[in-house]
């Protein structure tokens, strides 16, 4: 084992971690918001909006992110009306494009996950809320969303981990995050295994932290399902 090389590789890769984290957090947040919009369209009852949402989910879940990202980054610029519009100021930036395509993709997945959470809410608890005069936004905010989120959490943490790994594709559009930097190092030194192992450790640590945080959140949100705390026992 060439420890000097490994430390040097690790140092180089660690410098790219902030970029990976930036891609990750921005795309999770914006993708999450977009997913809420799509899920609202999907279950809101308007057949036209539901069809649009279905189509969106089908396309973004059904095709590889690599192709989506390629088309967003290299493809959009092929259209004059985009290139000469104000949008180009943003789309010109590789980072914006990378976040955009990651967010578009995760929104499709998250929307399906959130929908699953909503379907798992007991209709009886909804009825109980209606029977005291709750409806619309109040019902969603106080009853539907908290319960649905709790149900969706395990699947959503998987999606978040997948997103962390998906940021690796951003080097396709010249955003040099951890995997991209690793690949560049490889084409300079050809020591594939050592470099990829260093990268793997970084992702493993990041994902481990995420999974721990999510299960902590899950634990704190499921007080109502845990065994009876001793203090409350009759």
């Amino acid at each position: 084992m060439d420890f000097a090389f490994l430390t040097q590789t690790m140092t180089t890769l660690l410098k790219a971690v902030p970029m990976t984290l930036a891609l990750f957090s921005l795309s999770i947040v914006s993708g999450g918001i977009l997913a809420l919009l799509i899920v609202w369209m999907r279950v809101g009852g308007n057949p036209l909006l539901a069809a649009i949402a279905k189509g969106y989910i089908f396309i973004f879940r059904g095709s590889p992110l690599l192709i989506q990202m390629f088309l967003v980054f290299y493809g959009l610029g092929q259209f004059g009306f985009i290139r000469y519009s104000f949008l180009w100021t943003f789309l010109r930036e590789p980072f914006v494009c990378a976040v955009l395509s990651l967010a578009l993709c995760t929104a499709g997945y998250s929307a399906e996950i959130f929908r699953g959470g909503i379907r798992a809410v007991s209709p009886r608890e909804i009825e109980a809320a209606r029977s005291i005069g709750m409806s619309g936004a109040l019902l969603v905010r106080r009853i539907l969303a908290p319960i649905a989120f709790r149900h969706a959490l395990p699947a959503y943490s998987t999606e978040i981990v997948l997103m962390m790994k998906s940021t690796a594709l951003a080097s396709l559009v010249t955003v040099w995050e951890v995997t991209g930097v690793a690949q560049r190092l490889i084409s300079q030194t050809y020591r594939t295994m050592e470099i990829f192992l260093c990268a793997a450790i970084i992702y493993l640590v990041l994902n481990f932290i995420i999974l721990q945080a999510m299960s902590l959140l899950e634990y704190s949100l499921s007080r109502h399902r845990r065994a009876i705390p001793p203090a409350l026992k009759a």
Partner: protein
Amino acid sequence: MATLELIGFGSTGWGALLLLAALMTLCVTASALAIGAVLGAIISAAKLSGKTSLVALGNVYTTVFRGVPELLIIYLIYFGGSSAVTSIGKALGYEGFLGLPSFLAGALAVGIISGAYQAEVFRGAYLAISKGELEAASAIGMHRGLRFRRIIIPQVLRFAIPGLGNVWQLSLKDSALISVTGLAELMRTSQVAAGSTRQYFLFFIVGGALYLILTSLSDRIFNGAERRANRSMPTAAMGKA
């Protein structure tokens, strides 16, 4: 039109190669799912066993293979696996290179990853089985093996179908990464066609469309399976008997 010719089935058209590649993607993914099913069953059994060491082992497996980028695992299996096979060959007196074929290496790598996801799916499905139904099986004197075969397996399969549909979707896209092994699956063939003709958008869009077709086909299969499995569940149409 020149574009149509390029993706058509004529002598200058890439249609045949792309379709063949789509078929290859389908085969790799299906093999990976099968490998993953076996691994997933073993890992979920370990995680459910309640034995501290087995549970820890299961947790390490699912954490590592879900947490590490897929590409690395494919590299490890493809190159690491080949070296291992070669050195075993050497030990047995065989000179020269004994590689894992790309197909096998790819299917194995994606299968190992898919096994981590399937383990979680199976575990969830097992936990969804009504405890009462298991007790009812014990109460008529079913022994462990019989209970497993007659009650647990059929119900785990039923509850696991939607989750397996998701895993299939994931594996389908992981299979796109096998292109580093040179296997002519859909992603690599789209890239090769794009690079050889320099028609990048055309072939990426066509490749994407083929993935969508694969997705909708598999969606149909999984939905059908789900309907079949759920025929014992209450439906709005049947109502109360």
